[in-house]
């Protein structure tokens, strides 16, 4: 009778699971208690967290440092606008189209990007994002370089909005924000659960092996190239979904905004670096710090961005594992543990 078991669970992770359930339930009920401004803030936090989790999957687990994720935000957003404006698809359904278009276009993009390694991959993805921005600016049907708005009729007839309007007794514009917020909540929960699941499977183990030492991973039979490709496509899909949803909520789009390297990649990188690269907890901490900094200093414009840049540099130089890394090193707490440990039997698994 074997008394040893391989486990990834810790006492903290079990507590975290119930805590997370309560938190998600609370967030789901938030529209009943808070005003429209707070819902919009929460929407911003949740969508940035989604983008950050996917960038973290790419860079922190896949070793693929992309500076071109804005390509997929923009492509997803424009796919949604195209579907709604040209084909009259319901905007909510179009979010799925956004993700699909992003992942389909990620296939040819990966052909180009994967010819470059390391640092060159980073700039290569940036070039591709610029190509996407300049090409979309030539697409007259969705407003060319100046952009366009979601048609009023399409937004007015959007599914679920009338139900929310009557159920919560709010105006249509507020109901749309609430719907977008709930969709963002579903997306972020699915993202975190999905990434956590992925990292605990055999594929996740292979991914961690590739990240830690690619040659060694190859030598034990891990197909590193394929793992990176899967990660790249997964991130494109999630980033595209988030892009579609973000611009559904904004209601207005332009190539410069939708393919902005600052908004969709620089901020996301700061969130992940400040919070802690290569952990699921990191981006969660990072997005909260980022939102706090933005609420306090966003009025200072350029000074605020300089501050963010300096904090990012400082963290990378002096605490490369980010705030969560510092905390986790001191306390040993892991809320989303992925490391396999031997427990039970004579050898007592260290809990905590």
């Amino acid at each position: 009778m074997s008394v040893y078991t391989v486990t990834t669970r810790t006492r903290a992770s079990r507590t975290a699971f119930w805590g997370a359930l309560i938190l998600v339930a609370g967030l789901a009920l938030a529209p009943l208690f808070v005003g429209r401004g707070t819902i919009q803030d929460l929407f911003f936090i949740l969508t940035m967290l989604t983008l950050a989790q996917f960038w973290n999957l790419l860079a922190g687990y896949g070793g693929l440092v992309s500076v071109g994720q804005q390509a997929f935000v923009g492509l997803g957003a424009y796919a949604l606008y195209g579907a709604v404006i040209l084909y009259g698809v319901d905007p909510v359904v179009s979010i799925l189209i956004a993700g699909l278009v992003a992942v389909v276009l990620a296939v040819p993009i990966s052909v180009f990007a994967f010819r470059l390694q390391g640092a060159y991959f980073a700039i290569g993805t940036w070039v591709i994002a610029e190509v996407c921005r300049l090409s979309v600016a030539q697409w007259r049907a969705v407003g060319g370089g100046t952009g366009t708005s979601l048609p009023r009729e399409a937004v007015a007839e959007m599914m679920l909005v009338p139900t929310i309007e009557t159920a919560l007794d709010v105006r249509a514009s507020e109901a749309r924000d609430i719907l977008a917020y709930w969709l963002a909540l579903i997306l972020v929960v699915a993202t975190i659960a999905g990434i956590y699941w992925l990292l605990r499977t055999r594929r996740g183990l292979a991914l961690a092996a590739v990240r830690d030492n690619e040659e060694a991973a190859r030598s034990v039979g891990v197909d590193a190239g394929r793992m990176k490709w899967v990660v790249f496509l997964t991130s494109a899909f999630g980033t595209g979904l988030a892009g579609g949803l973000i611009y559904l909520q904004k209601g207005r789009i332009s190539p410069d905004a939708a393919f902005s390297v600052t908004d969709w990649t620089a901020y996301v990188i700061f969130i992940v670096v400040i919070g802690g690269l290569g952990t699921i907890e990191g981006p969660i901490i990072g997005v909260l710090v980022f939102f706090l900094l933005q609420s306090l200093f966003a009025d200072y414009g350029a000074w605020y961005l300089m501050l963010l840049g300096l904090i990012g540099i400082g963290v990378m130089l002096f605490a490369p594992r980010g705030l969560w890394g510092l905390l986790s090193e001191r306390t040993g707490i892991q809320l989303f543990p992925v490391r396999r440990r031997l427990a039970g039997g004579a050898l007592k698994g260290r809990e905590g």
Partner: protein
Amino acid sequence: MIGLDTLVQGVLLGGLYALFAAGLSLVFGIMRLVNLAHGDLIVFGAYLILVVVSVLGVNPFLAALVAAPVMFALGWLLQKVVLNRTLGDDILPPLLVTFGLSVVIQNALLESFSADSQRISMGALETASVDLGPVTVGVLPLITFASAVLVIVGLNQLFYRTAIGRAFRATSDDQVTASLMGIRPDRVFATATAVAMLVVTIAALYLGTRANFDPSAGPARLIYAFEAVIIGGLGSLWGTLAGGIIIGVAQTVGAAINPEWQILAGHIAFLLVLLVKPRGLFPQGGGR
């Protein structure tokens, strides 16, 4: 109409892109560091020259001579104090630190000089042109191209004819063995970045005199520089010049067909080369 004129303009523009790229290529070649703030450093250099011109009231070429030692010292300090800490097997720290630096430089320039576009005035030289048989070319683009060729000749001389160049090559090949021979890699790297900043100053002079620039102009320059380096093949400075020319010609031809396609045409030329010859047109050696 795409004529000889368009092609010549493109080739001369390529000289400017080769100047953008030479510094990037130098730093990558020696320490495998890709500086994402490279374009922003060029724009910073252009502002520095602009300030010198307006404060001292001197000719831009003289102003660049004044700016050069300042840029050299900044490059040395930047490498010694910040970037050396990020070097290692992990590619993330240098990328993320230089990306942060790019954001910092852009916003510092925005705060100091506003978002208005600026230009370094060259006086009569701006509009001067010479007749070269079938085509007439501007004197300034011609000087830019000649400077690019001179910079590449100079860097090759530095690399292969001097003690510093020997130290550069040795450190690039094998850091540990080089340090056994009494070379201090941290100083070699600092010197390399300082030299790269001299090239950046020259690039900045022509960026600022040929066209308008503003604090957000850096990333696009980084991208052109990067494209030129990849097209040319890593480690080949003459290849970088060829890469710059390909981007320049693609842009002017694209612009001749439709002004909106200028930048796009350059990027597409880059992607085509990447597809057909992923290691560039003139790859050197083992190609790590």
